[in-house]
C-alpha cells in the first residue's frame, strides 16, 4: 500500500540575471533530502542575480519539510537582494507562504537567553528567601486572625467541611499509622535488645520502647506520615482550586478563603494529631512487646507492667503536645503552599513537593527546639 518515496533533489540553473530553482521528487518528513547549504553556497555573493524563480514540474508529494526549506531559501535570497517570484510555486505552497507571513513577528516578542552572573544568582536566591519568609509571616498573621474570629464565633466556614477534613486526616490515616508505628516499636525493641541482653536486662526493653515511643518517636513518625499524606493533599487541593479560579470565585462571593478553606483544615489537623499520636504510641508499645515476648523470656503481662511503671503522664503529655505543634506546622505549610500556587498544572506539583519539604523541615526544627527546652527545664 505504501508508495515508495521518489528521491528528492534541488538544483540551481543560472540564466543571466535569472536564477531558476528546480525542485524534484518527494519532500516528506521521513525522506532523505539534499543539504540546502550546498545549494545556497552556489549563490556566491549573489550580486549578479536579480530574480529567483521556481520550477516544480517534477515535484512529487510534499509536506512541512519542503516548506521549511523554501522559507530558508526565500529568506536567504531576500537578504541577498534577489526578488523571489513565488507565483511560480504550486498554489497550495503559495497559500501557506502567505499564511506564514500574514502575521509578522512583533518586535521585541522573541526572548533572548541572557547569561546571569553567579553573584546575581546568589543575590536572587537571597531575595527569594526573604520574600518566602515575608509570605510566611503574612500567612501566619492571616491565620491568627481567622483563628481568633473562630473563637469569637465569627468565622464563616461550613462545619461539614470540618467534619469531612477530620474524617480524611483521622480515621482514614489509621492503617498506615498502625503499620509504621508497629514497625518502629519493633525496631526500637531490636536495637535496644542488642545492648540490654548483654546485661540480662531484657525486661528494660519495655522502658526503652515505652519512653522512646511516647516522648519522641510516636509523635515524630505520625508527623512525618501526616506531612506526606495530608500536608501534600492540602497543597494539591488548594493549588488545584487556585488553578481553576475557585478561590477567586469564593472571594467574589464574599468568603474569606483563609476562613473558608484554610481554617477547617488547620483545625481538623490540630484536633486529630494528638489522638493519632496516642494511637501510634500504643501501636509502638505493642510492636515492642511482640519482639520481647517472642525472642526473650519475658511474659506479656510482665512487659505491660514494666511499661506502665516506666511511662509517666508527663512523658505522654510531652509527646502529645509536640504532636499538636507538628499538626499546626503541617497544616500551615500545606495550606500556605497551596494558596501560593501559580496557575498551571506543573505549579500544583511544585506546591505539593514544597509543602512536604517545608513541613518536614519545620517538624524537625521544632522537634529539636522542644527537646532542648524540655531537657533544660528538666521535664
Amino acid at each position, binding site marked *: 500500500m505504501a508508495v515508495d518515496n521518489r528521491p528528492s533533489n534541488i538544483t540551481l540553473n543560472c540564466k543571466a540575471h535569472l536564477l531558476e530553482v528546480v525542485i524534484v521528487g518527494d519532500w516528506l518528513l521521513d525522506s532523505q533530502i539534499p543539504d540546502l547549504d550546498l545549494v545556497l553556497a552556489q549563490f556566491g555573493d549573489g550580486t549578479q542575480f536579480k530574480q529567483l524563480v521556481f520550477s516544480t514540474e517534477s515535484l512529487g508529494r510534499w509536506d512541512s519539510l519542503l516548506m*521549511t526549506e523554501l522559507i530558508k531559501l526565500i529568506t536567504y535570497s531576500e537578504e541577498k537582494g534577489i526578488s523571489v517570484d513565488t507565483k511560480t510555486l504550486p498554489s497550495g505552497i503559495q*497559500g501557506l507562504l502567505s499564511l*506564514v507571513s500574514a502575521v509578522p513577528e512583533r518586535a521585541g516578542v522573541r526572548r533572548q537567553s541572557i547569561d546571569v552572573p553567579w553573584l546575581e544568582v546568589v543575590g536572587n536566591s537571597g531575595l527569594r528567601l526573604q520574600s518566602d519568609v515575608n509570605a510566611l509571616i503574612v500567612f501566619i498573621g492571616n491565620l491568627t486572625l481567622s483563628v481568633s474570629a473562630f473563637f469569637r464565633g465569627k468565622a464563616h466556614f461550613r462545619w461539614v467541611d470540618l467534619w469531612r477534613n477530620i474524617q480524611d486526616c483521622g480515621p482514614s490515616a489509621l492503617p498506615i499509622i498502625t503499620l509504621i508505628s508497629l514497625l518502629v516499636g519493633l525496631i526500637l525493641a531490636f536495637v535496644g535488645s542488642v545492648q540490654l541482653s548483654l546485661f540480662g536486662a531484657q525486661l528494660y526493653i519495655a522502658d526503652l520502647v515505652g519512653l522512646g515511643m511516647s516522648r519522641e518517636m510516636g509523635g515524630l513518625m505520625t508527623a512525618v506520615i501526616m506531612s506526606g499524606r495530608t500536608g501534600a493533599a492540602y497543597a494539591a487541593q488548594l493549588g488545584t482550586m487556585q488553578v481553576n479560579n475557585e478561590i477567586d470565585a469564593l472571594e467574589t462571593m464574599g468568603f474569606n478563603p483563609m476562613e473558608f478553606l484554610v481554617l477547617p483544615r488547620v483545625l481538623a489537623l490540630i484536633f486529630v494529631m494528638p489522638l493519632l499520636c496516642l494511637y501510634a504510641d500504643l501501636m509502638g508499645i505493642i510492636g515492642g512487646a511482640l519482639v520481647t515476648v517472642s525472642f526473650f523470656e519475658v511474659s506479656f503481662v510482665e512487659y505491660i507492667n514494666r511499661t506502665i511503671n516506666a511511662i509517666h503522664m508527663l512523658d505522654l503529655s510531652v509527646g502529645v503536645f509536640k504532636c499538636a505543634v507538628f499538626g499546626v506546622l503541617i497544616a500551615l505549610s500545606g495550606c500556605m503552599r497551596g494558596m501560593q500556587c501559580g496557575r498551571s498544572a506543573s505549579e500544583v506539583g511544585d506546591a505539593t513537593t514544597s509543602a512536604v519539604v517545608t513541613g518536614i523541615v519545620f517538624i524537625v526544627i521544632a522537634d529539636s527546639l522542644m527537646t532542648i527546652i524540655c531537657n533544660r527545664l528538666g521535664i
Partner: protein
Amino acid sequence: MSSPCLSIKNMTMAYGNFIIQRDLDFTINRGDIFVIMGASGCGKSTLLMHLIGLHRPMSGDVFYGEESLWQADYKTRQRLLRQTGVLFQSGALLSSMTLAENVALPLTEHTRLGAQRIRQLVSYKLALVGLAGFEDYYPAELSGGMQKRAGLARAMALDPKILFFDEPSAGLDPVSAKLLDDLIRSLRDHLGATIVIVTHELASIFAIGTYSVFLDMETKTMIASGPPKQLLAESRDPKVLRFLTRGASESSNISAIKRQGHEIL
C-alpha cells in the same frame, strides 16, 4: 474529491449502561469541513472521543478509509491515529513546557529529524498560526486565543490528514473566532486536510461548514445531516430549526423563522 475519509458505522456510545447516542451512521469525505452540532450535553464531545480513539464504542465501529479503528490491534490503531491531529477545547498544552517544546514533542517522538530541522519546523508551524517569535513562552503567559492557536500548531506538527477541533471558537471574541475560522479554512485549502469540528457556534457553522450532522439529546441519535445552509433552508424538523435559528422558531410560522435565520447570517 468525495472519497470517504472517515466512516462511522452503526455506532452506539455509552458511559457504563447510560446510552449517550445510538445508531450513528455517517461518512466524512476527504476535504470536508465537517461540523458535528447539537445542544450542550447531547454527546458531541463524546463522539469526538470515539473518533480519535480515546473511548471505545459500545457497538459499531469507526473506519479510517477502509480500515477499522476499533477492530484493529493497538499498533494498527496507533498507526491510524498518527494521521490525525486534535485541538482540544482549552488547547491542552503541557504547562511545564514552552510552546516550542510542546510543538516539538510529537516530532521528536515520531520522526527521526535532527534538532536543527525540528526547530525550523516548529518555527514554521508557529508562524502558520500567527505566533512567530513566541517559541520560548510558557502557555500560562499567553491569552486564551493564543493558547488555542498554539494547540493548533501542535495538532498540525506531524502534517495530519485529518484535524479534529473541539469547540474551537469557545471563549474567543468574535473577531478572533472569525480569524480562527479563516485559518481553519485556509489550512484545509492549502494542506488538503479533512477537518472535523465539534461546535455549537452558529456563525462558524454557517461560515465554514461544508457538511454537518445534528445530534439530538431526546431521541439519542442524529436527526439531520447535510450542508448547514441547506439544513436551514430545507429542514422541517423543529428541533433542528430551533437550533439553527437560535430558538427563534418558537413562533409557528416557519417561513418567518427562515427569514430570521438569514438575517442572523
